[in-house]
């Protein structure tokens, strides 16, 4: 068995999301150590057990206090990505943009919109189009339910991952 780049990335993602602190994988002549502990992935060595332990699920640096004096000045400006999104009410399912592109509610400017607030949608219904350079991506609802809110403006650019619709799921 050998690992390719994608496998390694998968392992990183898994580790990042997991509560494990270290992964030690030996296969054939490959020895991979992935560690979230202090000191990073330094030389392979047996765990000493004397290191300060970080509570599971908490990355060490996130627990760091305020910046020390003498450090590079902190940037005070908030992250200027798109406007803050409304908190998603409990029980509503978001439909987000799978790509950056231009959001269209209808197939043609003169056509009625695919969906309006209050409409019922099936999983495979198209709810909008996102255009990336003349490539028209039909976005499916992916969930059965009622359209509670349309969160993007027709004709506006939406970012990757931006909230487009909130759906109130209907159980069968």
């Amino acid at each position: 068995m050998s690992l390719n780049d994608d496998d390694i990335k998968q392992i990183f993602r898994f580790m990042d999301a997991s509560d494990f602190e270290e992964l030690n994988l030996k296969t054939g002549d490959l020895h991979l150590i992935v560690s979230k502990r202090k000191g990073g992935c330094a030389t392979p060595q047996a765990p000493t057990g004397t290191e300060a332990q970080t509570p599971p699920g908490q990355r060490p640096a996130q627990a760091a206090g305020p910046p020390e004096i003498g450090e590079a000045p902190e940037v005070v400006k908030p992250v200027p990505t798109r406007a803050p999104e409304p908190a998603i009410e409990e029980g509503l399912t978001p439909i987000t943009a799978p790509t950056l592109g231009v959001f269209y509610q209808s197939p043609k400017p003169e056509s009625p919109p695919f969906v309006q607030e209050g409409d019922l949608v099936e999983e495979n219904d198209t709810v909008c189009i996102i255009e990336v350079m003349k490539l028209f991506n039909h976005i499916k609802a992916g969930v059965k339910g009622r359209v509670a809110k349309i969160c993007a403006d027709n004709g506006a650019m939406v970012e990757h991952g931006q909230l487009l619709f909130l759906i109130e799921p209907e159980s069968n």
Partner: protein
Amino acid sequence: MGNISKVLIANRGEIANRVIRACRELGIFTVLAVSEADRDSLPAQLADRAVCIGPAQSSASYLNIGVLITAALGTGADAIHPGYGFLAEQPQLATACQQNGIKFIGPSSQTLRDMGNKLMARQMVRDLGLPTIPGSQKVSDPQQATELSQEIGFPLLLKAAAGGGGRGIVVVNEAAELPGLLDATSAEVEAAFGDGTLFLERYIPNARHIEVQILGDQQGNVIHLGERDCSIQRRYQKVIEEAPSPAVSAQLREDICQAAVTITESIAYEGAGTVEFVLDQDRGEFYFLEMNTRIQVEHPVTEMISGVDLVQEQLRIASGEPLSLSQDQVRLTGHAVECRITAESAHNDFQPCPGRIEKWKRPPGEHVRVDTHCYSGYLVPPYYDSLLAKLITWGQDRDQAIERMQLALDEFQVSGVETTIPFLSQVIKQAAFREGKTNTRWLEKYLKAQKEQPE
């Protein structure tokens, strides 16, 4: 400024910060295209606006031309700055920009195409009567390759026409190896670059990598800002760069820089670029290697000795303004050295070490420059290259610049991820480096010796 008031930056990391700074100084608004992994990065905070263009994988974000163009149009940007790497030298991005009325900050797509093909570039330089490394046109079959190799001599290099950044280069030590390596390399190169074309080239054992910074504007003015020496390399990747070169005499400097200007003028080059040469120290001859049609990682050493802001010049040129200075006004003062600090484990075969930086304290002091996107608490993502920072020092002479680099490296405090800082500190202590008596193979030899003789 001019006809550019908002720039979309299609890059990440330290170069994104560098471009943002240049734009801000010129009063240009910045839009930074970020992947999901870089949403909270320092450049995302510094830019006037950040737009998320896709997932962490660069193939779906930083390399996605359609999405970048849509983001530029959607945010009203009049120009795209590609930085280095990613799409910086892809003619397709320049073409797409042109088709959508966006200014690509760099040369024309035709120039990108011509210079991107190493064989075509060399032929063009030969046609100008300038020296190129003794070598072949493309090789097609083992028979022809064997004949060509006898003219060039062994050892020689087998190189990919579409290669770059040290990829697609194989050393052939003797004639018997050639047919086998030809087959294997062609297949590898085909898979990596989509073009299996190979050529042969003389292998120069005692070589220095010398490159000349040039600027060309839309009015046809071309100037050079002297040379950089990037001979300290590992696996064809630059590790330490400096300007000026300790291996270049005044006469040689004049000849190399003039050759670079001649090449640049001949293609009506627009923007900042670098003409790379190999200096054969045994023969005292230099040969054209290739032209890089973008801002280089190591551009700060030139900025430190010339006082010229190269990224601002790129923006000025793209907006149609003439160069801010003529060749007569270029004054190169003192000496500058740059070390590339990466998240890699030097004693573990330079394995990349992504992870969260716990402590990040840059060295203080005059004449010390740090180009970086890192800070205490920053998570170095595993998706991109491992460059954390470029540490640059300036001195009135080479000794002073290196001495300041030594101090600055020793003062640089980073914990949480392993970095190459201790390794770099050892390298610049070496007598051969201090005396300027190195070549492009020196660092590999030093590493090999270290491995065989652990302290």
